[in-house]
């Protein structure tokens, strides 16, 4: 196995769980990031301020990391055209399927939602398949 870091992964996961729990217990809302971002972008009904502040919190964490732990943010090994196509797929897919890794994978599975389970298995499989095909085609364009 490659660069295995179970300790920091588990700690980070616990922090994510606490963050999502805070939003549920305090505001009664799901910490689904694609939903929050697309809601902000498209002005979906519901709280503008709450979504904007959540995103501001994410950005503040990233900003702090660039000062305190710059190694924690790395750039993608993929080329610009690949990343643009990837972005379009992620945007379209999360909007159509109502969620991403956080909304379906963390929040949905935590509430034993069958929809979230189907979505999570599906995106895990297509993501693994994509990486495999990419590697078979000769690595990193």
């Amino acid at each position: 196995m490659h660069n295995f870091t179970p300790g920091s992964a588990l700690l980070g996961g616990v922090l994510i769980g606490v963050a999502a729990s805070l939003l549920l217990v305090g505001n009664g809302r799901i910490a689904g990031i694609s939903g929050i971002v697309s809601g902000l972008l498209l002005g979906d009904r519901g709280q503008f301020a709450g979504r904007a502040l959540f995103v501001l919190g994410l950005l503040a964490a990233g900003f702090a990391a660039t000062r305190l732990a710059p190694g924690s943010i790395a750039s993608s090994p993929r080329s610009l055209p690949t990343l643009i196509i990837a972005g379009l797929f992620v945007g379209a897919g999360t909007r159509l399927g109502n969620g991403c890794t956080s909304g379906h994978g963390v929040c949905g599975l935590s509430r034993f939602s069958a929809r979230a389970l189907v979505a999570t298995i599906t995106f895990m499989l297509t993501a693994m398949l994509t990486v495999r095909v990419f590697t078979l085609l000769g690595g990193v364009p």
Partner: protein
Amino acid sequence: MNSRLAQRLTALLSGGLFGVGLLVSGMTQPQKVIDFLDVFGQFDASLMFVMGGAIGVHVFAYRWQKHRTQPLFDRQFYLPARTVIDSKLVLGASLFGVGWGLGGYCPGPAVVSLPAGNVTLFAFVFAMLAGMFITAKLETLLSQRKQQLLVAPHEPSES
């Protein structure tokens, strides 16, 4: 404390903590994400622990929620009511997975990494927002079209 202020502080704190969690976990390193997804290659199982840790904590919040009619700072819970598993869900999740595998970014880590000022990431996020926007507009257009077909008055035929 005024509940609107409490709501806003909660949203900010939750976003900040979520971001720290993503940074600590390694999700903001796309190569690590790609290695996790490369099950038959140089598999790095770390990210399984991210999901395990997050769900292990978050299930307790839902256990609490089941016995309550409202959260601390609002009058109701806003939980997804939909339960139907349809082709839209499966198609959407499939497309998302392809994009995740292609770039190594899902939406949260992409947003958190923006302050690092990486130009290719800006392009990814811009394309992601464009994908959301176009999909939402197409969906509204299609549902309007469908409704028009359903309510369109039938012309009496001459035959």
